[in-house]
């Protein structure tokens, strides 16, 4: 009985470790390949650890394409997306939870219904709208269409509804107007939900691909993701450089993940199960 249990436990650990290796190996291989010489990277049998660490591959990759510029663009677009999405969601969630106006419930159900529409169906018209506005190759083209996300409005509204109404009336009696009440009392209380939304918007924005591919043509407006696929065509068979470029994109997120993994996983679970 004891022995049988031990085998079972060992099997469990074996399975979990195997899956961890399968998950991590592509990341390891990316970094290992990025540090090899052009010769070693295509050598058979492949070396598990580079013979000598070619850090200069990173320098070469960075000069072959303006990755620094792509990086700045991606940071700007991600930061703008986070700030604007959070503000839009806070305002809308407050309107839906605390204010009364005609058609409120109808508009809310319209918002919820729109969540079923896949974004891919909208891009054709949105592309036309962006070019009609002369917004091609601008930051606003990358940020504005995704500023209002119904999932985040819904999540915040749920939280706002949980805050006792008495607080609202008490604040009113004390002379605080809606605007003050929202930013001074509600928003600090909803800090947890707001951080979750920031994380979700941040990940989506950092990794976005199709929309920025369509609305940016100039190299200096490209994001990291589009820059990398362009580089994929340019680099040809220089796999060590391509892997160096992939590492450059992946590292910031991995570092953030090491510090924030609990918050990120929690945020995705909350966002996931609600949506």
């Amino acid at each position, binding site marked *: 009985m004891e022995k049988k249990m031990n085998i*079972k436990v060992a099997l*469990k650990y074996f*399975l979990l470790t195997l899956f*961890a290796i399968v*998950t*991590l190996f*592509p*990341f390891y*291989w*990316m970094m290992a390949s990025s540090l090899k010489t052009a010769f070693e*990277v295509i050598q058979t049998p*492949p070396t598990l650890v580079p013979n000598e660490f070619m850090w200069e591959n990173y320098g070469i990759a960075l000069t072959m394409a303006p990755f620094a510029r792509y990086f700045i663009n991606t940071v700007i677009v991600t930061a703008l997306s986070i700030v604007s999405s959070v503000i*839009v*969601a806070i*305002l*809308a969630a407050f*309107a*839906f939870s605390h*204010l*009364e*106006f005609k058609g409120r419930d109808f508009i809310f159900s319209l*918002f919820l219904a*729109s969540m*079923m*529409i*896949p974004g*891919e*169906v*909208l*891009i*054709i018209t*949105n*592309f036309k*709208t962006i070019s009609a506005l002369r917004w091609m190759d601008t930051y606003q083209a990358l940020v*504005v*269409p995704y500023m*209002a996300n119904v999932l985040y409005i819904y999540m915040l509204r749920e939280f706002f509804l949980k805050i006792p109404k008495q607080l609202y009336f008490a604040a009113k009696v004390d002379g605080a107007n809606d605007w003050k009440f929202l930013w001074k009392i509600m928003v600090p209380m909803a800090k947890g939900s707001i951080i979750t939304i920031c994380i979700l918007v941040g*990940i989506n924005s950092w*990794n976005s*691909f*199709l929309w920025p591919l*369509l609305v940016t043509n100039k190299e200096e407006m490209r994001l*990291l*993701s589009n820059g*990398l*696929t362009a580089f994929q*065509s340019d680099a040809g068979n220089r796999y060590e450089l*391509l892997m160096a*470029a992939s*590492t450059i*994109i*992946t590292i910031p*997120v*991995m570092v*953030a993940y090491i510090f924030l993994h609990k918050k*990120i*996983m929690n945020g*995705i679970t909350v966002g*996931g*199960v609600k949506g």
Partner: protein
Amino acid sequence: MLNNKGKKSYKGYLYLLPALLVLSVFVFYPIINAIVFSFDETKAVGYVFGFGSYKYLFEDKRFLQSLVNTVIYAAVVPALSVGLSLMIANTLANLKNEKLKGVFQSIYFLPYVTSLVAIGVVWSWLFNGQYGIINYLLGFIGIDPINWLSDPNWAMPALIIFSVWKSLAFNTLILTTGIASINPQYYQAAKIDQATNSTIFRKITIPLVSPIILYTYIISLIAGFKVYTEVFVLFNGRTLDGRVSTVVMYIIDRFYGDQDFPLAFAAAVVLLLIILTVTFVQRTIARNKVHY
């Protein structure tokens, strides 16, 4: 009083204005526009207002192949991904060591946060026909090198392997959380009755997490019908003569490449109908069949 109410009403719209404006311009208007102009006359056919685009679409080999590819992908990837995730999540949830559990969980979730594009480029290197590590490893068990990314017969399997690997992260996290939230009293009662692990899994875990299983499956299914970036990155924008083309790829090709908007709109509406059907079926099942 009346005045006060009027003021209140006006205020609500002000707070709602940014969201309403953005959604109107970038969601509500484009969806109506897409439906209306899918009936417009197309370049390819020259039909006047009507179902011309749709008729052309279902006679167009490129579209039909994209649709078939997408359906195959959506039939295989979510099922494999959710099945494997459930197995991993169940093993993980039964782990006694909380610290190790946390470490495993964080590792498994990593592919979700890292850029799909970067990791897709990495997988195209792993799958490389000449120098890829996958072919090298397969050599040990006597399998000849496979041209994963250029052989039309192996392109779809390569795409499926990569997509399952990538999508496991999300499904495993959600299912592990779901299993962990089951009331431990059920398990204690089962242990007292000396139920085996597999009985516990089938009779307790599966029924109790069935809403979450359905949820992850539907999310994966919808994502499956919308697949684009995975293909673009793995094959560096090529479709191998349409062998790995998808519906979204067809839409992009038609409007960005050919500038044939009505045809692109019609394909988009077909995608919309597929996704609405999936959502509707999910709601019906969730209401009637899933055990809570």
